[in-house]
């Protein structure tokens, strides 16, 4: 058990315009197989990745919001969102998708693991992480 590390995936890019958001999601899904303690942090344009209502039917791209919604099933325990980044973009937590989490062994449930945090919390959460992957 001592091999379990605290991983954080740091997402700072908007979805669709570049490949960063998609690559991050792929690595998170692959990493889920390794039983680590996984958190995601969304800041700057990365907060746009979680805005609900995306419709990619006219742009011939894969809509990956449905995949984000399943992250709780892939061992992701926290999805933090920098509050100031939301505010600068005219967004609130009401604009974001909700992601549920459940521990299949203990049946512990959390309705929504998407959580806005302020700058001090962002810094602390990143400092507490043992590995930070940047996208």
């Amino acid at each position: 058990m001592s091999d379990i590390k605290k991983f954080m995936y740091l997402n700072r890019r908007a979805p669709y315009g570049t490949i960063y958001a998609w690559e991050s999601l792929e690595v998170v899904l692959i990493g889920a197989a390794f039983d680590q303690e996984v958190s995601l942090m969304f800041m700057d344009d990365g907060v746009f990745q979680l805005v609900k209502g995306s419709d990619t039917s006219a742009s011939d791209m894969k809509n990956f919001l449905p995949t984000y919604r399943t992250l709780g099933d892939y061992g992701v325990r926290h999805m933090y969102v920098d509050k100031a980044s939301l505010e600068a973009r005219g967004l609130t937590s009401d604009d974001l998708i909700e992601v549920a989490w459940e521990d299949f062994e203990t049946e512990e449930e959390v309705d929504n693991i998407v959580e806005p945090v302020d700058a001090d919390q962002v810094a602390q959460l990143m400092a507490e992480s043992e590995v930070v992957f940047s996208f």
Partner: protein
Amino acid sequence: MADLHTVNKSPFEKNSLEAAIKFSQAGSAILLIEDGVYGAMKGTAAEGMVKDAMGDKKVYALKSDLMARAIKDDRLIDGIEVVDYAGFVDLVEANDKVQAWL
């Protein structure tokens, strides 16, 4: 006649939109595409800059890119015109040339 300026980067990450606005002449058309469409959103840190530009320039945003990024009509800055791919072609045809801000 005037020029069509396309912007495909988020105004929160790069200064492409700011530069397009600063270095385009009155009467120009500015078309927001790809991540550039974030500049069309109401209530953001970039809204004031875009509204100022609309005093003497026309601003457009591409519908398919707005849709993918969940930017609905009620989120758009008033006065921004949404165009589809055919509308993009019309803008290209109606202007002297296209200048891309990357």
